[in-house]
């Protein structure tokens, strides 16, 4: 065994060695490098296997491209596709592809690559989470090298919008086949950056694809990316991220409103709100349980919530209050319907409606017959939901309704929704297409609680099968109106994700689906 002196010497040498060998990675002087934050290490960079936010961001922003993108009005526009044409019965859509794209490994992008992706998603052995999003897709054919024919079991209108998501961006079939299960660690796409290196749990390095051709006319830079290299650094703790922004070790990071606050007003940063955000925070009810089966009661509660206060408490005001059942960022959001049929905050009106419905107040708590107005509202545990619930609880107390609030982590809360053990829940969904309403409100609804409603079900079914965009949007409006009229939802707000960008990083801009125009990014100086 070591004696004391030997031990001291050995540990001292080890420590000194540790410090001396720590040479930071250095890059050539004129190399343009941007460093951005990842909140967690992606589980694997393969869109067939994962639909998590961080995976979609890395793939969608840098590595992969899709058939279509959505323009600032939310209309699908050709990207890797040249054009498309639905058949008369709407069950077949034929895409023509643009020429001249190649994957980072030299494989040509063609109909076979498109078919390969969708075939892999549809293959039950892949257990792909994106399969359920396109459940109506039956098969994909390639009559020639640049033509892809999608066949559906029924007309499937959301398809075009969904094609713009990074879940349906294309991987090199050669690389996928060659790498097998290791592919998720070495993704190969057609995007402006190529995968270079991944230090597990630490960082992902991407380098410019020198032969990149920009097929999106809305990007400012129509050539290869300006940056030579992008380093995506995994940093979980927001306090640490803020420090890294201060020292310049990160040039951009998405943060919550709380973490942004100390950086706000500092001239070395600019702050970018994604005002096209497609999330909606809302309250839904147990529609089978009295008094929530009564539209008049749901209506009364809907007037009681001060959405502006909820937005301020939960998101520091970063966002916009919602009166309609669809997020403003989703194509088809109809503001006139929201304004006309929505329930803006009006506590007096809420009280009057409760009075009229027979809920008598007694010592601050209302009751009807022998039912006291005491309920439970649950949500997933998060600082935003907890603060929102505090406001909601106070608002409801003001009109004589007492609610107990409780939160659990998502894994406990979400499956619990299917076993109705409570009266109301506060929830938040993000989805880019208006068919989110079908998920939530097409009877029997995602919680299996909704009675059939011909107006709502009819409008939703029509909107999901109408391939003509203008006609579809009319059905989407009808659905919003019918859902609001039946008071199936208490919409609260859409929050805007916040990104803090150091001024030296220029050109940080998001498209309608929140994809970053990474080839436009530049480092000043």
């Amino acid at each position, binding site marked *: 065994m070591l004696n004391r002196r030997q031990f001291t010497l050995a540990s001292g040498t080890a420590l000194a060695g540790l410090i001396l060998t720590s040479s*930071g990675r250095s890059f050539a002087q004129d190399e343009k490098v941007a460093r951005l934050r990842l909140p967690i290490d992606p589980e694997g960079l393969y869109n067939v296997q994962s639909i998590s936010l961080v995976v979609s961001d890395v793939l969608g922003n840098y590595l992969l491209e899709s058939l279509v993108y959505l323009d600032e009005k939310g209309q699908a526009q050709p990207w890797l596709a040249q054009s498309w044409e639905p058949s008369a019965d709407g069950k077949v859509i034929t895409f023509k592809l643009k020429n001249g794209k190649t994957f980072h490994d030299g494989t040509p992008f063609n109909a076979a690559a498109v078919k390969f992706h969708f075939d892999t998603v549809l293959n039950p*052995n892949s257990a792909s989470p994106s399969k359920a999003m396109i459940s109506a897709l039956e098969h994909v054919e390639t009559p020639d090298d640049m033509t892809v024919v999608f066949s559906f079991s029924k007309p499937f209108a959301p398809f075009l919008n969904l094609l713009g998501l990074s879940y349906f961006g294309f991987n090199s079939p050669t690389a996928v086949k060659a790498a097998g299960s290791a592919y998720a660690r070495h993704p190969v796409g057609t995007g402006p950056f190529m995968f270079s290196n991944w230090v597990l749990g*630490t960082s992902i390095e991407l380098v410019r694809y020198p032969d990149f051709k920009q097929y999106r006319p809305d990007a400012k830079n129509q050539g290869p990316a300006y940056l030579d290299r992008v380093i995506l650094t995994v*940093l*979980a703790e927001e306090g640490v991220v803020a420090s890294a922004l201060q020292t310049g070790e990160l040039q951009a990071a998405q943060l919550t409103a709380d973490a942004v606050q100390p950086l706000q007003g500092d001239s070395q940063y600019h702050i970018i709100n994604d005002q096209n955000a497609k999330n909606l925070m809302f309250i839904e009810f147990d529609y089978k349980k009295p008094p929530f089966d009564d539209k008049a009661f749901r209506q009364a509660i809907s007037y009681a919530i001060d959405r502006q206060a909820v937005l301020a408490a939960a998101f520091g005001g970063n966002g916009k209050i919602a009166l309609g059942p669809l997020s403003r960022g989703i194509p088809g959001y109809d503001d006139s319907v929201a304004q006309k049929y929505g329930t803006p905050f009006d506590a007096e009106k809420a009280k009057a409606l409760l009075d009229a419905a027979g809920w008598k107040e007694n010592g601050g708590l209302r009751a009807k017959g022998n039912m006291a107005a005491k309920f439970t509202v649950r949500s997933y545990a998060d600082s935003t939901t907890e603060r929102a619930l505090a406001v909601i609880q106070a608002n409801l107390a003001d009109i004589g309704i007492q609610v107990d609030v409780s939160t659990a982590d*998502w894994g406990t809360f979400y*499956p619990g929704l299917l076993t109705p053990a409570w009266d109301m829940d506060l929830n938040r969904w993000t989805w880019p297409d208006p068919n989110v309403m079908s998920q*939530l409100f097409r009877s029997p609804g995602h919680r299996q609680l909704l009675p059939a409603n011909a107006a709502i079900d009819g409008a939703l079914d029509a909107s999901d099968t109408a391939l003509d965009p203008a006609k579809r949007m009319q059905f989407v409006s009808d659905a919003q109106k019918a859902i609001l009229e039946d008071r199936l939802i208490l919409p609260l707000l859409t929050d805007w994700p916040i990104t803090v960008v150091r001024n030296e990083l220029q050109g940080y801009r998001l498209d309608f689906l929140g994809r970053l125009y990474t080839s436009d990014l530049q480092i000043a100086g």
Partner: protein
Amino acid sequence: MMQYVVRRLLLLIPVIITILLITFLMKALIPTDAVTAMYRGQLSEKDAAQAIATLRAKYHLDLPWYQQFFFYVGDLLHGNFGESIRLRRPVIDEIGYRYVNTILLTGLALAIALIFGLTTGILAAARRNTWLDVTATTIGLFGISMPAFFFGLLLILVFSVWLRLLPVVPHGPIAILLPAFALGAIEAAPLSQVARSSMIDVLRRDYIQAARARGQSEMALIFRHALPNALIVVLTVVGLQIGNLLGGAFIVETIFSWHGIGELAVNAIQWRDFALTQAIILISAATYLVINLVADIVYAWLDPRVELLS
């Protein structure tokens, strides 16, 4: 000696089986699994039913917990820790390098804790009731009361943002310094207190008085005569503190993005990635038990009065 070690190692088996059983029971009580967690907020469960069912069957999640337990133990006996559902990779690939990172971090933290704890403790005892003692004890109190996550952020603010000595974003081996210091400094505080009181106790003993009467220098008194005896008590505390260090690593690793098993455990639990969680629990428990065994052996080696096979 050998017999003792073997016996202690064999005792690990029932302990580990008990830990496994408890975690499987806990899993049975949690209302969701990794597959549901993968679909978080994206789609309603009914539309993804087929994909969910395929994945569940693949990982035996559709079976009752005791059947899953037998599958798991069977795999384990073949040296197979299973596959992470979230990462779609063998658990052992993900844990291997992270385990090394955690051991490096806790090892360095322990060294820092010992250096600071012993130095301040000994100094405080030798210069009892002077300003040195008061300062060391006060700092120690702060250390005991300081939560690791707050101390960690404070260190980043001072050393990275203000002084710009160390990077915030970890890269290169130097990245270990701040987390190791955050973890070690907090553990140094109780060590310092124990070292101080133990030294004071030893310094009062007759043999120290006798040595002093023989004209031994104060340095020789402290380091040659008192310290070895005071260290025996400190060692007991160190053995116990290693558990704290491993636990504290879970927090410190997350703050400093130090990619050890602690950080992975936090994620694995959120993902309900059971194979991953289970393996981390097993490895942490085994590490803790082995370290305690080592502490016991060293204890006997330092103090001949302690019999291992009593």
